[in-house]
């Protein structure tokens, strides 16, 4: 065996090992949570709300409801804004020769890039200062959703813009050459072709809302009661894990909640896979 093929085998061996180790670490984390958490999961765990106090008694009903509200309200703010901004950046902004608009667009792009790298607690702090305090929304689903929207809008803009960019220019030319205007072309050809990528981006950011903790710590309050309006405070599942682990003796319940959370994330990612593969076969 010559030196080159030995190098090749050694390199592949190392990559293989790195891959195996990475998968094992993930499997260990998930496995550990499941082993510790699953025994505590009973039907009552889902149907009763936490009782509060040091004991950490009760289930996670109200936190499921809060998490669900958070997803819906946050996406209601963030999805139209994010997708709309991405459509402007991708489909319209290149259509001008005006230097001031080009400059503004490049600033907007830079802003989006930067914002998607900002730690979430910064958005939390911003949300606390603006929505909770200055606008008097208090600790509420509204405040938390607005802050959460700030967090995921850059993500949605980026993923949507990527999805739009991956639509071949030939589709646009073909549509415009048939007498469609830019909006008709965007609405009837480009968006359907990019639907798969856009919905993936939106679902991924929904996952971000489910798993986010720091930002809601300072905007959502921590009330373990079932929220009854947008102005109610609440406690998302991820936040509940934090409270259980740090402020009660019920570490087992934290693990059970975490197990539910992990399962939810897995289900969301599977949904993404199903949706995208379905659309892929339909388009193929």
């Amino acid at each position: 065996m010559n030196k080159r093929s030995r190098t090749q085998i050694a390199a592949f061996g190392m990559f293989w090992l790195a891959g195996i180790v990475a998968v094992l670490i993930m499997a260990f984390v998930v496995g550990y949570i499941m082993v510790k958490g699953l025994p505590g999961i009973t039907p009552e765990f889902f149907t009763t709300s936490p009782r509060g106090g040091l004991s950490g008694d009760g289930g996670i009903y109200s936190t499921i409801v809060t998490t669900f509200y958070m997803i819906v309200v946050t996406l209601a703010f963030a999805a139209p804004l994010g997708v709309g901004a991405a459509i402007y950046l991708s489909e319209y902004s290149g259509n001008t020769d005006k230097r001031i608009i080009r400059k503004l667009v490049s600033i907007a792009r830079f802003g989006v890039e930067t914002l998607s790298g900002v730690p979430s607690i910064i958005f939390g702090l911003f949300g606390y200062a603006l929505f909770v305090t200055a606008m008097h929304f208090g600790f509420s689903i509204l405040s938390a959703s607005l802050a959460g929207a700030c967090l995921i809008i850059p993500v949605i803009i980026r993923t949507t813009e990527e999805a739009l960019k991956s639509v071949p220019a030939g589709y646009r030319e073909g549509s415009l050459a048939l007498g469609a205007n830019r909006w008709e072309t965007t609405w009837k050809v480009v968006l359907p072709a990019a639907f798969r990528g856009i919905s993936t981006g939106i679902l991924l950011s929904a996952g971000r809302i489910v798993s986010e903790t720091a930002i809601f710590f300072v905007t959502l309050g921590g009330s373990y009661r079932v929220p009854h309006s947008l102005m109610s405070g609440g406690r998302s599942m991820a936040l509940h894990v934090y409270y259980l682990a740090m402020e009660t003796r019920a570490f087992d319940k934290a693990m059970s909640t975490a197990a539910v959370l992990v399962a939810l994330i897995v289900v969301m990612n599977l949904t993404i896979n199903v949706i995208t593969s379905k659309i892929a076969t339909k388009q193929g």
Partner: protein
Amino acid sequence: METEVTRMQAEDYSLFYGKFKALNKINIKIPSNRITAFIGPSGCGKSTFLRSFNRMNDLIPSVTTSGTVFLDNRDVAKEDVVELRKKVGMVFQRPNPFPKSIFDNVAYGPRLHGTKNRSDLAVLVERSLRQAAVWDEVKDDLHKSGMSLSGGQQQRLCIARAIAVEPEVILMDEPASALDPVATLKIEELMNELKKNYTIAIVTHNMQQAGRVSDYTAFLLTDENRAGNLIEFGSTKQIFTTPSDSRTEDYISGRFG
């Protein structure tokens, strides 16, 4: 040539990308119901010129023009661009069916322009696919994606899509350059059929193709400033047998390009 009816015309037409002049004072009359081929080496501006007829160059913000392009003696710059593109259809180099069903691809244009009735659309779709000589191959699969067809079928689908809005002119930008020889031949036969009803302008790199299909040929070449000039325009037979400009002769005989 004097007996021909002019469908499209350019008068002292120049086009600039920013400060760079890409087309220099082009004058040409494109006859109705004929196939006019634009030939010339890469970068001579023939595609850019073709795109002037349906104002596709409007999409590039830095483009400015001088002179005039006419369709039926009307300045295309003053036409409503939607109406203009309805009258001047286009087929592109790479087949670009939408990721929709074959039916929806062909119905796309008519729907845009207001045909909503399902049975009207069905009639229109069938007629267009027949005219584009692809009906027999797809009639049982109208619900299937246009992307599932072969390259040659896709290109004929795109021709059907262009025909469906009932244009007067069809611009073809190297329509066969991405196709195999058999599919190319089908497109060429189709063009010969189509010229009965439409005026066709085609850009091609393939000189044999220009010789085979076109009635008239225009030869473009860049000058010392890299701006495209119309060197010679005449019947294809004359251009290919007795070109009056030595540069045309050099190009035709393969001495450059």
